């Protein structure tokens, strides 16, 4: 038994009862970061279906809304979307469409279930259409994404991979694993994922938000210096 446990540790197989793990955690965004594969793993009883989601905070987001004005399209107002996470990634052992809709909605096991929770202000008759548009916009940014059949359950554990988009802002994200058996939730576990800026991006973001006057002056001085230096380079290069 001890030998089996040792082999499992060496192979990186989570032990039965091991907590939900996300790697890497924290995600460190440095100068050349352009997204990464996140590995999720944990323990799962044989025969269970596991879905792992990662969600950002549900902060209100303000959008322009396009509509028809006679034959033309224009911004006809604004709409605030609240109650939906700004980022939502979900990976499942099977497509959520194979599960009862009520179960998917109650446990937010797909993108549709997530946007259903969004409330719109001002509310109107076309809220459903705008929720779909919100989802399509988020999908186009890579902030909402579904990874079907990306989780495998074997030998008492589950593991899978999700792609973390480069556009996700730093902050705290909630990771949740939902275990299903015969159409019922049998276990739910959560973890916290931290995303932070480091190195040059971290320094610039700190300067921009904490020392904004210095940041403004620096932006102007360097922009002008680049312009004038390029002018000098061309002059020395024998320009007219």
């Amino acid at each position: 038994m001890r030998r089996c446990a040792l082999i499992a540790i060496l192979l990186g197989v989570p032990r039965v009862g091991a907590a939900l793990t996300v790697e890497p955690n924290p995600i460190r965004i440095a100068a050349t970061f352009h997204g990464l594969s996140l590995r999720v793993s944990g323990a799962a009883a044989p025969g269970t279906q596991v879905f792992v989601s990662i969600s950002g905070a549900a902060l209100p987001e303000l959008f322009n809304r396009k509509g028809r004005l006679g034959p033309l399209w224009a911004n006809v107002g604004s709409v605030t979307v609240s109650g939906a996470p700004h980022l939502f990634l979900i990976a499942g052992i099977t497509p959520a469409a194979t599960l009862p809709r009520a179960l998917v909605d109650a446990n937010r096991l797909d993108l549709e279930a997530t946007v259903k929770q969004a409330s719109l202000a001002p509310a109107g008759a076309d809220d459903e259409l705008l929720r779909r548009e919100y989802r399509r916009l988020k999908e186009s940014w890579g902030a909402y994404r579904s990874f079907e059949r990306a989780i495998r359950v074997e030998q008492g554990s589950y593991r899978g991979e999700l792609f973390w988009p480069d556009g996700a802002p730093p902050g705290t994200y909630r990771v949740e694993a939902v275990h299903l058996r015969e159409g019922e939730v049998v276990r739910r576990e959560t973890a916290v994922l931290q995303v932070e800026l480091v190195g040059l991006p971290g320094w610039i973001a700190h300067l921009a938000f904490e020392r904004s006057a210095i940041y403004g002056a620096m932006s102007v001085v360097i922009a002008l210096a680049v312009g004038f230096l390029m002018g000098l380079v061309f002059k020395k290069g024998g320009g007219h």
Partner: protein
Amino acid sequence: MHLFLPIAAKSINILIPFGLGGLVGFLSGMFGVGGGFLMTPLLMLVGIPPTVAAASDSCQIAAASASGTFAHARMGNVDYKLGGLMLVGGIGGGAVGVQVIKLLRQMGNADFLIMVTYVVVLGLIGAYMFVESLSTLRGRVHSEAARRPSRAGRILAALPLQTSFPKSGIRHSIFVPIALCALVGILAAIMGVGGGFIMIPAMVYLLRMPMHVAVGTDLFQILFTATGVTFMQASVNHTVDFILAIVLGLGSTLGAQLGARVAKRLRGEQLRIILSGIVLLVCVKMVYGLVATPTLLLSPKGGH
């Protein structure tokens, strides 16, 4: 090579903003336009949030106009006296324009009004420039009728505080460039982009400045306005992405130098007909944007 843009919160291949900067800088150096009309939508197309695109664009305009002004100043194309007066009018006009836009937004449908105003103004200017420069290229403007001062010219000549602008070879009341730039500043603020596309034709056709001096002088005043906007956007709105702006700036300053050299090899009317072609293309693109069904009905609030 990818670089992470900390304010835009996006990773981008460095060659993309460098190339975009080069293209827009080339136009800037060639025609004296800031390029905001082109750069912001292009940046949004590659996934930069609108507010960050607009603010970082103002930073690269500062860099490109510094480079362009430097190049034009060496060629003797900057009328500093006129440029200074224009700057006074432009700043005043911009401040009035910001208030006008606030009023329009309170009345509702402001964006639609702005877009339609933009299309109409660009369409009229583009068409007029195109016809005029085509006529000049065909040698039709050397008639006596064309040389006679127009009624507008006579009115301008009757205004007080007339002064000469030797670099431009013109004589006007000091109120003329100030009022003109105030008007352009108002329009530019309402339409949400720099006024280069209106300013250059106004300087050439209303003030009767030579095209090359108009380009150099306009770049000179853009340098100051873009600098002010960059500082405000960076320090108040925190929307200038420094890394993006530097890469754009490197591309655009290089482009601006090349643009200024190409411009020097072309005659004024040749430059005007190319510029009018671009203005008309932008106009057509905007009309298409108004008529075609959008891919998405929602867009993030902010930006131009």
